[in-house]
């Protein structure tokens, strides 16, 4: 059932604003819309400034809160590998909203500390890089036994330090270059004197000998000593680096604090965002938004408790307004809203299809899975998940659907399916009455059964459509566009299946339906279209055919599950047979290996078939069923609330 929305405008004192907003967020009762002074949004700010109006929240505050969220999120991401991993089936911790918000400064402090450590790590890293670079440039000069900073130009000569291959030293000597060589093998460091008066000749000789000038690092000193010194400095840097990393890892202990802080920051962010939607004067503020009509009184009570003085105006939405959609269903049906919302939430003025869809969804899901053993696993798995993990939102809804989907699968498995891929007759002998219908043997019966069920769902959809149109007073659509087809179907069924006078009544009824379509089908068209429109409507019959045939997928998916499970059993039994022959350990090994193999293969089979069934089943609802009566296009009611990521908020 769709709960109608009320539009609210609240005027209250600015002094109470923070308290009121906090209460509203805690209770999650209103969806705040941007309060506008005027219809044209662009002129509002200009107008607002002139009239002394402004937004209650400041952009600066919002930016700060957004930054908090981003920073804590980044810290959690950086520390992820050092944090204790929550178990697969562990429920999120529960905290009060104030507790979460109180954790924000602590989390920011941890973030700050982490940022500091990361900066130090980066510095240590780059220093180490620099020192390594220096060592690399000093390495060729390691045999130079004089301090590098003692090399200075004299009055008549400059000195250049570089390396030359040992065998070229003689060539240099012959050329008359004055130099000092440090060593005799390989690339030899050479300190050459270049006369200031005529450097070119000496330089040319050096070049000819393949002299490559060394880049002398700024450090000075004897190269070998410098390298030793640098090495020890690097070692201490590495120590520092690993200490810093340990400190970072130690911050992982603050996981719970950070996660609470993030949730608190998220709560603050959404509140700050909402405050930017409010219009305010110096002393008052105005809030506009939507509230569920069944919570209107509660809202009034909440505000009355918090405000010294206020004015609250509630009204039904105007025709041109698009209120958000909120559906209310009982505990059994509510999870199925997830399926509808996957397509589109209903139009706020339309009809909530959840209750008329859920039974069909369960039926077809069960038929598509069609294995009692798998149904058992699905139900138990979903129950376990709900009990231990306590998921919220979409995951919770899917789990709740699967609990009942599993039950339906168990029943359908007994009627038309298998048990963990095994035939019932193989388990309990030929006399066992189940399955009532074996789709592998009676293919035509199965096909007719599934398409028949599909036809039944389509007719149900048409009946729903008639009810909707009649309650709206649109009896023309109900009778001419939908009822007429039902008359044809009912008449044709009577004419084909029943004998005697009823047969002729059937002909009459079908003929009447046909006549209604031809005469009134084009009633909204003008001129010639009125005539052709009605005949054109008869083409809809092809749509019925293709929709009914679409239910053949139920057959295919159901068969695929059973056959896949059966093949996995065959494979496992072959493995068992092969391993049993091993002497002594054979029985144990074959048992263990086969058990593990069976478990894995069947889990896999359940996973891919459940995914396929879930979606194909949803598709049958969307295309074949909703087509008949459903008005999509709503936007979900999203009240200002304490939405969190890691913790569950207790009220």
């Amino acid at each position, binding site marked *: 059932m769709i709960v109608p929305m009320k539009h609210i405008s609240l005027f209250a004192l600015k002094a109470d604003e923070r308290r009121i907003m906090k209460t509203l967020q805690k209770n999650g009762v209103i969806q705040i819309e941007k309060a506008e002074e005027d219809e044209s949004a662009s002129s509002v700010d200009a107008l607002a400034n002139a009239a002394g109006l402004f937004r209650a929240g400041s952009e600066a505050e919002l930016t700060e809160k957004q930054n908090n969220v981003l920073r804590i999120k980044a810290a959690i991401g950086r520390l992820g590998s050092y944090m204790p991993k929550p178990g697969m089936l562990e429920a999120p911790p529960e905290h009060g909203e104030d507790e979460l918000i109180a954790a924000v400064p602590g989390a920011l402090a941890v973030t700050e500390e982490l940022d500091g450590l990361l900066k130090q790590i980066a510095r240590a890293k780059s220093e180490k890089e620099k020192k390594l670079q220096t060592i690399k440039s000093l390495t060729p000069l390691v045999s130079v036994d004089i301090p590098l900073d003692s090399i200075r130009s004299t009055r008549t000569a400059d000195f250049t330090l570089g390396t030359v291959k040992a065998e070229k030293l003689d060539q240099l000597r012959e050329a008359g270059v004055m130099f000092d060589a440090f060593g005799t093998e390989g690339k030899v460091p050479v300190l050459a004197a270049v006369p200031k008066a005529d450097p070119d000749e000496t330089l040319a000789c050096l070049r000819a000998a393949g002299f490559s000038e060394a880049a002398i690092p700024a450090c000075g000193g004897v190269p070998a000593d410098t390298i030793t010194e640098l090495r020890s400095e690097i070692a201490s840097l590495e120590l520092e680096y690993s200490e810093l990393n340990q400190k970072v890892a130690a911050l992982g202990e603050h996981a719970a604090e950070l996660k609470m802080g993030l949730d608190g920051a998220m709560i603050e962010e959404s509140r700050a965002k909402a405050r930017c939607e409010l219009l305010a004067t110096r002393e008052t503020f105005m809030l506009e938004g939507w509230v569920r009509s069944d919570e209107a009184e509660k809202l009034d009570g909440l505000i009355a408790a918090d405000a010294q003085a206020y004015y609250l105006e509630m009204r039904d939405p105007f025709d041109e307004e698009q209120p958000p959609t909120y559906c209310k269903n009982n505990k059994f049906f509510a999870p199925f809203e997830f399926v509808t919302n*996957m397509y589109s939430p209903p139009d706020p003025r339309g009809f909530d299809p959840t209750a008329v869809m859920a039974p069909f969804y369960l039926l077809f899901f069960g038929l598509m899975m069609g294995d009692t053993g798998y149904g058992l696993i699905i139900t138990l798995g979903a129950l376990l998940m709900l009990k231990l993990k306590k998921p919220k939102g*979409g995951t919770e809804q899917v789990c709740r659907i699967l609990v009942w989907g599993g039950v339906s699968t168990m029943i359908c498995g007994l009627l038309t399916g298998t048990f963990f891929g095994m035939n019932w007759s193989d388990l309990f002998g030929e006399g066992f009455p189940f399955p009532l219908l074996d789709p*592998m043997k009676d*293919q035509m019966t199965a096909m007719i059964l599934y398409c028949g069920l599909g036809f039944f769902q389509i007719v149900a959809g048409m009946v729903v459509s008639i009810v909707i149109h009649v309650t709206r007073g649109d009896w023309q659509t109900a009778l001419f566009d939908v009822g007429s087809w039902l008359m044809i179907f009912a008449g044709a069924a009577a004419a084909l299946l029943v004998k005697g006078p009823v047969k002729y009544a059937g002909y009459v009824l079908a003929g009447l339906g046909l006549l209604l379509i031809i005469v009134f089908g084009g009633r909204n068209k003008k001129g010639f279209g009125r005539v052709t429109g009605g005949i054109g409507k008869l083409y809809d019959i092809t749509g019925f055919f293709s929709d009914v045939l679409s239910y*053949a*997928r139920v*057959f*295919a*998916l159901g*068969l*695929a599950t059973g*056959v*896949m499970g059966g*093949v996995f059993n*065959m*494979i496992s039994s*072959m493995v068992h047979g092969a391993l049993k022959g091993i002497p002594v350990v054979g029985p144990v090994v074959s048992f263990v290996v086969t058990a593990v193999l069976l478990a894995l293969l069947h889990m896999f089979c359940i996973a*891919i078939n459940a*995914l*396929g069934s879930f*979606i*194909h089943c*949803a*598709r049958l609802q969307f295309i074949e069923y909703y087509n008949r009566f459903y008005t999509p296009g709503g936007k979900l009611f999203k009240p200002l609330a304490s939405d969190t990521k890691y913790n569950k908020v207790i009220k």
Partner: protein
Amino acid sequence: MTGIMWAALGAVIALVLPGIGSSIGVGMAGRAAAGVIAEDPEKSGQCTVLQLLPATQGIYGFIVAFLIASNAGLLKGSGASDLAVSVGRGYFFAALPIAIVGLVSAYLQSRVCCAGMNIVAKQGEGGKGIVLAIMVETYAILAVLVSVLMLVGVK
């Protein structure tokens, strides 16, 4: 060709063609998934589901291949040499639907999966992309249905 050769050929194409399609499909989707996960490792769950969707055709092919091999007596090692040619041919033709449709639909489904990764990357939500991709699978399921029904009916 003898009956057993026809049956073996059927089992081989039922396995190989959809296997090729699925490995191409999973490969393409895997590349797209890596791109999304590189930006945001939190999305790896949804991306993995999307990547795995084109894998089912290969499994359907494997199942049909296995059923053919088992029915034709290829698995017992004795090689049922007395398999009638008409029966062997029956198995071969039963393999064709899943072999051909599996190959093509795995490839085309993978392209929808890759597009679906864009939805995950931009909206952070994979459900809609999975729905789109599963639609392509319909035809592989119908093909495996026909293949299995045909090979059960071969006499």
